[in-house]
């Protein structure tokens, strides 16, 4: 029979190789799917992964697509390192967009350059508060943050839907569920690069995303706060022993990730849409989860991972236009990629071993012993919970 045996030390090359192998297998699987669907696989893969990079303006659009993914996944990495499983970034993004929208719509005449700053602050506040709810319920009532944050996403989706249909609807929008357009001061302008000029839709949110990832990386790897986060994720008991407060860390990472998701929502609207509408995000909050794992919870790597995943998104559009391949294939790609990453994660920490019957009995015995040790630890752990 086959069993999974925990590795004692993890070879360094594996930690780097696994995400790359996962991407390669995903591409391979994609080719097989195209072939099964009756499309020429090589041409389809070309459209998906290479064509989007063949024109400079497309490179700009790729960066624009990656922008929210990078910002959101940086925040999610804070959570996941602390062993807090926020999967409600989508909802936090929407709340952020609404917070910024409220500022923009409240000052329709504004011309101040601080307008955009105020919108960003309000977006982060709103997102952080939406993220604080599951955090608070987790530390107060031990409610699963996975469920609560996901459920809050649906509340957020309906909240923005209702808002743009009733209280905030533009009376001149011919009954369409849209708000008034933001004033110019509330929009993020397209960037003009020296010597190149405009690069597709490349806007000022993109450098902000890079900056967010770099700051996040610095905080997580160099600061005492980042150390606390890792400690609470790896060994909460040692964290309490060191004198850190687990509840405080939980709230902090939930609010950071909520705030960053909110910022991404504000950038998305101000740079690309210019008003609130029922659909703001195209699942960025969920796709960013894949980005965070593809980056192995490292914000710097999240820049690269965000670009890879954005490429698949963009390629889906290209392939739909040029080869009439349905857009849902992008979702399939993302699904396969996440699956491969999780499999890779498991195989990094465990090796596959074939065993005979007697050794199986031995392993079972060992697992009984392990269970009894763990039981004793739970007793102790229960004892030390204040």
């Amino acid at each position, binding site marked *: 029979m086959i069993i999974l045996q925990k590795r004692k030390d993890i070879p360094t090359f594996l930690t780097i190789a696994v995400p790359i192998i996962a991407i390669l297998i995903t591409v391979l699987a994609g080719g097989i799917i195209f072939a099964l669907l009756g499309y020429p696989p090589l041409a389809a893969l070309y459209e998906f992964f290479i064509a989007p990079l063949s024109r400079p303006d497309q490179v700009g659009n790729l960066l624009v697509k990656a922008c929210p993914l990078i910002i959101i996944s940086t925040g999610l990495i804070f959570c996941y390192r602390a062993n807090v499983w926020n999967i409600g970034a989508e909802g936090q993004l929407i709340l952020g967009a609404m917070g910024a929208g409220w500022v923009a719509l409240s000052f329709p005449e504004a011309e101040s350059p601080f307008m955009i700053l105020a919108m960003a602050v309000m977006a982060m506040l709103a997102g952080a508060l939406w993220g604080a709810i599951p955090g608070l319920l987790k530390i107060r009532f031990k409610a699963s943050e996975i469920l609560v944050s996901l459920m809050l996403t649906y509340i957020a989706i309906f909240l923005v839907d209702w808002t743009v249909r009733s209280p905030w609807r533009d009376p001149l929008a011919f009954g369409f569920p849209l708000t008034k357009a933001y004033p110019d001061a509330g929009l993020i302008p397209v960037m003009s690069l020296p010597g190149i000029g405009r690069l597709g839709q490349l806007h000022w949110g993109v450098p902000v995303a890079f900056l967010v990832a770099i700051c996040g990386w610095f905080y997580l790897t*160099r*600061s005492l706060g980042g150390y606390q986060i890792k400690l609470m994720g790896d*060994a909460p008991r*040692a964290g309490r*022993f*060191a*004198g850190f407060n687990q509840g405080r860390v939980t709230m902090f990472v939930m609010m950071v990730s909520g705030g960053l998701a909110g910022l991404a929502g504000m950038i998305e609207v101000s740079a690309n849409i210019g008003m609130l509408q029922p659909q703001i995000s195209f699942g960025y909050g969920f796709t960013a989860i894949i980005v965070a794992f593809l980056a192995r919870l490292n914000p710097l790597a999240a820049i690269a991972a965000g670009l890879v995943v954005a490429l698949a998104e963009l390629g889906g559009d290209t392939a739909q236009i040029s080869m009439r391949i349905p857009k849902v294939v992008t979702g399939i790609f993302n699904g396969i990629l996440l699956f491969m990453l999780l499999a890779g994660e498991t195989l990094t920490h465990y090796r596959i071993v074939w065993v005979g019957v007697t050794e199986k*009995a031995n392993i079972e015995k060992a697992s009984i012993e392990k269970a009894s040790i763990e039981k004793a*630890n739970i007793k102790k752990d229960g004892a030390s*919970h204040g």
Partner: protein
Amino acid sequence: MTKAPRKLNPKSKDTPLLASYGMTKSFGDLVANQDINFSIYPGELHALLGENGAGKSTFIKMAYGLLQPDQGYLEWRGERITVTNPQQARAMGIGMVFQHFSLFEALTVAENIALALPPDFTRQKLSQMIKTKSAEYGIPLNPDSIIADLSVGQQQRVEIVRCLLQNPSLLIMDEPTSVLTPQETDQLFQVLKRLAKQGCAVLFISHKLDEIKQLTTRATILRGGIKVAEVKTKDQSTRQLAELMIGAKVKEIGTLSTPKSSKTLFSVSGLSRSAEGPFDIALKDISFSVKAGEILGIAGIAGNGQSELMAALTGEWRPASAAGVNKIMIGAADMTPLAPAARRRAGLAFIPEERNGHAAVPSMTLSENALLTGYDQADVVRRGIINHDNTLAMARHISKTFDVRQPSDDPLASSLSGGNLQKFVVGREIIKSPQVLIVSQPTWGVDIGATQFIRTAMANLAKQGSAVIMISQDLEEIFQIAHHIAVLNNGQLSETLKVDDVTPEHIGLLMGESPTRSGKARSGKARVSS
């Protein structure tokens, strides 16, 4: 099921009951057993002696059919055999009592035993058999008791009776006394001696040298997977045995200096804590004090409130209201409402029992582990940013001073052996020269070399004028370095006694005196099986 015959034929006196020839077993690069020749005769009390990792467990697992040797073979009553699984070993007449019991807490004694036996016993017949068998060996058991309600010593009896019901001719006991009081140990030894008299061989695995001298006649000593000696135990002093076991001269810790009467450095008064979870032990009105230069040993069997006491002392648990009678003082300063970090700043240092995930983080490097209790120190963290060079220097300094053997410059804590990681954890606290050191089970699961090192370090800290509070299950340890002793039993602490005035037997009585263990268990324990 074939029952091994209890009556032995006369010629078997010269034939070993179980013998091994050239047994070798490797796990990857690690040779756990190399060329082990071993024999045990009917009715013999034989010790298998060695430090953690010497290969004792590997050897008995091969004898019990849990592992297969790479080379070499076993003989049973002079016939070459292959033991492919524990069922076969039991059928041959080998019984084994594991260090970690494999009992279901929610089931009764009889139900647990029935699980291990062939299904052809009726419940009533089995209950009767359990009663007779346990009474016969002077370890009475009620077949209808629920395991969760029994003390650890009683649970071990269930395991023993379970083996005895299969009429073994060889009983293997893996570190059986580590969970027992001295009195329970005595009772166990009487049972084992009785078994031996009836012709059953007993293979006794331990690293406690006094016990081995007291119980067994012959000892096979393993070191690093190799058999280094086979001796008659009565010809050897415990010190000689220890030297055979670790392969080096055992360093004496040196005589204890008696502290001059000085000021009280640390005191606890009226510490009470109710049981919050199903497995918690309530602490009842605990009071003690320690003077400068003094080591106070807190004895007691695990599970009598040690972890609850430790959490209250570190500040990981604090009383809900400051108004209670709870008082934890360092000098004249009240520590009671302070969190662990603030208590450390006031001059306390703590070493919890569990190395992995409590006192240290296996998945972090040593420098990160140094930071765990050192982030308050100067030059380590400035404006929230960690100075990596200085944490690394701190970790190196600890490793150098406390002889921590490590595979690379700044390795993961998980790559250190238990003894070396414990030296690091102890060193991390002692190097700060705390006014008061509070340590729980400082040498639990640590090899002899590291044990001596750690005990010496604690004794030296006390010599420099610090106070040390040492919670330990190991009486030998307390008698070796502590000046005073108190016993924790079911959440209550006895009065503090001078170590010179008490005997281990006296302490043993205090450890096991209250019969309320089962009462406690009945009142609140969730009966969930593992």
